[in-house]
């Protein structure tokens, strides 16, 4: 398994120690860095690798907004966790993959962090199954998921209804999904269509 870089940006020594200890107990190959000032964070973020960035709300207040924005704009590369140590309202709670709240018990914190570590340690090519279906089939699948009939699809793609049916049969046997509703779920999960596109 690939080593995952963890950055803990937090003023409190006590919190840093606690988090480092907890993370080390999880048994993943982690490279943990503790950071206490913005300049060091900037430098640390220049390197381009998969990482878990844990930042406290207090620390975040000292950061220029564009620094965090640049991190968030590269999803899948960085997972961003907020330690919500001050009364929020000042910080919009969006864009974080996980938020650790002060009342969270150890188990909850563990679970939240572990989920993200699992995401980061996943192989890059997650959507492998999509590649099993051909580009044309993907196109057909998209239209099926959007609720179009065979006839409509045939007209749109300049193929016969018969060909559409063949494509659909192949899609169903490759993916193991029979119903239109099921194909729609698949298409949304694999980002072939957006939920709001469906009528």
């Amino acid at each position: 398994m690939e080593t995952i870089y963890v950055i803990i940006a937090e003023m409190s020594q006590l919190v840093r120690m606690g988090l480092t200890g907890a993370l080390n107990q999880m048994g993943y190959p982690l490279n943990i860095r503790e950071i206490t000032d913005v300049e060091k964070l900037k430098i640390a973020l220049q390197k381009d690798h998969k990482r878990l960035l844990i930042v406290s709300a207090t620390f975040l207040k000292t950061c220029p907004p564009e620094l965090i924005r640049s991190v968030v704009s590269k999803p899948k590369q960085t997972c961003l966790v907020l330690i919500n140590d001050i009364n929020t309202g000042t910080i919009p709670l969006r864009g974080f993959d996980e938020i650790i709240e002060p009342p969270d018990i150890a188990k909850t914190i563990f679970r939240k962090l572990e989920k993200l570590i699992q995401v980061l340690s996943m192989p890059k090519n997650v959507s492998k199954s999509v590649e099993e279906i051909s580009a044309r089939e993907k196109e057909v699948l998209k239209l099926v998921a959007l609720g179009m009939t065979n006839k409509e699809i045939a007209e749109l793609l300049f193929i016969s209804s018969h060909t559409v049916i063949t494509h659909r049969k192949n899609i169903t046997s490759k993916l193991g999904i029979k119903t239109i509703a099921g194909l729609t779920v698949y298409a949304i999960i694999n980002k072939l269509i957006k939920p709001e596109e469906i009528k």
Partner: protein
Amino acid sequence: MNYHLLQIISRFGISLGFGDKSVKQVCRDYSIDVDFFLEIVNSYHNKNYFPKKQLQGFSLKLIIEYLRKSHDYYLNTKIPQIAQLLKQLSDFSATFTLESLHLIDKFFKEYKNELSVHIQREEDKVYPYVFSIEEAFLTKNPTQEIVTCIRNYSMENYENEHDNVEDKLFDLKNIIIKYLPLPVDSHLSHAILFELFRLETDLRDHARIEDKVLVPKVKYMEKWILEHFTT
């Protein structure tokens, strides 16, 4: 010991704590037809054992009572249980997998509605029809009324509209096994899959009783009524 049978005996209304009583005694306590009970339990226990002829020998009232109890079990026990597990799965997942899990929740709700509609149709339309056929058959009284009834709706219609409710269940399993975006709690997803597989098997056994026992039996009666009806 086949613990899967526990859910079948509870469907007959038998609760736990039956001590060392024999099957016969327990059935007597709960006023259950012991032969029918044994045939059903055995057919669930051994997939290759399906005593079509024996089962067809029981009254339709008994068979339908059993089918109704299974319906009740699906809608009021099994489905809520799976829905609960799915909810837990969303509760325990990282924020960015939530969207997909909501989709799956929604998909499951659609399945639930489909199943309810299917069951409702059987209970409201099919079973009363079956009872009237049985009555006419047993009293050997093929009236004009019942013949019209058969002409309007017969078991053949039922077979045709007995659509595939399993398709969505099949898809749901595959989506969870193959396409669920990580990370999700794998223990929970396994538990959900386990329940889905169990429900699927149970529904298949249920459909087997409908297709192999109920339908032929009623068809036979329909035929008799039509043949013996004289204007």
